């Protein structure tokens, strides 16, 4: 079977972000970027399916600026066979990404599409579900276990209060949760080899998709700062403060 994996270039998860002085957006100049952590888990799962002989080909895809090719090369170094870059400098919302990915699904006819459950920049948690809707495929979101079984896939999902397992007919869309796997690191020889793997570049126009959104970003602000607290010296002092100062006990 063929597996399609979507990856996103985002700010590195360890970076403490700054809001621009004019409140127009978050300042991303000279900030370290990386593959979204949930996308790494998605790539890892696809590569493991290949290693188990379940998948025959893994195709990585991204939507974003030219620099996002770095993240595709990372996916190739981790074990993806080829990559598709849909290049645009626009701010592309989840719906437009889902429309672009739907076109790729249409063209590539994968049996399984794996995405991360959310990107750590926009924190939307939408693209996988939207892709499932647009392709009219079933979805297994927030997956902590994926088991392909003939023409079905059993997906164990992390839900509020516990775990739920659903059976989906293939092809299907799966989004990864943190506990699905532990992504590997790319080895140097694989990084070198990845430079020779095929990478197609396309544009949204090639797919006839309009990326403009009806949602506009009016303003971005820093959240209210918490007032600096105090250190207490003992349990007694802590209980006293909570009772008499904070009045929460």
């Amino acid at each position, binding site marked *: 079977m063929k597996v399609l994996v979507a990856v996103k270039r985002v700010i590195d998860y360890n970076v403490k972000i700054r809001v621009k002085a004019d409140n127009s957006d*978050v300042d991303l100049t000279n900030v370290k970027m990386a593959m979204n952590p949930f996308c790494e888990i998605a790539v890892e799962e696809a590569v493991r399916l290949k290693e188990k002989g379940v998948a025959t080909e893994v195709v990585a895809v991204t939507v974003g600026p030219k620099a996002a090719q770095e993240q595709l090369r990372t996916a190739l170094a981790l074990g993806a066979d080829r990559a598709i870059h849909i290049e645009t400098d626009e701010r592309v919302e989840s719906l437009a990404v889902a429309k672009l990915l739907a076109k790729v699904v249409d063209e590539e006819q994968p049996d399984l599409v794996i995405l991360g459950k959310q990107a750590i920049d926009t924190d939307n948690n939408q693209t996988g579900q939207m892709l499932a809707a647009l392709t009219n495929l079933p979805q297994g979101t927030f997956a902590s276990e994926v088991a392909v079984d003939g023409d079905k896939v059993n997906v164990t999902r992390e839900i509020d209060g516990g*775990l739920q397992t659903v059976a989906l007919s293939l092809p299907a869309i799966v989004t990864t949760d943190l506990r699905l796997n532990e992504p590997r690191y790319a080895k140097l020889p694989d990084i070198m080899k990845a430079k020779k793997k095929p990478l197609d570049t396309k544009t949204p126009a090639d797919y006839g998709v309009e990326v403009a959104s009806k949602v506009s970003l009016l303003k971005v602000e820093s*959240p209210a700062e918490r007032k600096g*607290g105090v250190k207490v010296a003992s*349990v007694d002092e802590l209980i006293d403060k*909570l009772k008499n100062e904070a009045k*929460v006990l």
Partner: protein
Amino acid sequence: MSILVLADLHEGQLAGATAHVVAAAKAIGGDIDVLVAGEGVQAAADAAAKLDGVSKVRVADNAVYAHQLAEPMGALLVELAGDYSHVLASASTTGKNVLPRLAALKDVSQLSDVIGVESADTFLRPIYAGNAIATVKSDDALKVMTVRTTAFDAVESTGSASVEAVEVVVENGQSSFVKQELAQSDRPELGGAKVVVSGGRGMGNGENFKLLDGIADKLGAAIGASRAAVDAGFVPNDMQVGQTGKIVAPELYIAVGISGAIQHLAGMKDSKVIVAINKDEEAPIFQVADYGLVGDLFEILPELESKL
């Protein structure tokens, strides 16, 4: 304007989150209907009818909606959405699973985790793990959004809305429910608890989480955990507080053996009072804690329990 709120269910009963989403709907203004979809959900529908501000409860009671699988729920919502200007659900795993599907089927964007309503088309939502707050305006004809329940106070149960059945039954041949394992707990639900006591990697092992039980009992608190504690297998993952786990905003949050990574803070920094207990006085958690106690949690926790 008319607003449809998708009710949250927990084991067939109406979940507390729904009252918070109705509050967000009231902030938008207009007629508010609640959709209760599932199997054997009459009691949940009756409870929803009591929520203040609700004009009508629509009940889709059918086996196809059991467990609220995304495929039939998306199809049901598409059938009903034509009557509304807004469709809201809580940012629970069900809301997050279903609403983007509805939005894409209606060719509109979706707004996730809304924490503030400026007007019927302008909303506030956190981005970058809560390190920035975005104000966004939607010009879509239908606004589809999930609501962060901790940002809106629950409405009272003083209403008396009418209850009517929805006759729409959709087909679903794509997905089926296999099984569910829900954690059993007598403690308050993490998302709605007034006090939360959380443990991190510093707890050392799962057995040591019992040290939190006595304190949680005395405070009527829910017990949470950091990602490190979950990844280490100390506790199940539905206890995780943070960007990718539960978002909580209790009156009192006690972080024990938690360093305070950005991703954890995203889930609890709107708590009213934060207490940190950690042996590392440089731990980032102390920068957001109202009260910090530096010391060995294995000495502090038993003392705290005995003195509460």
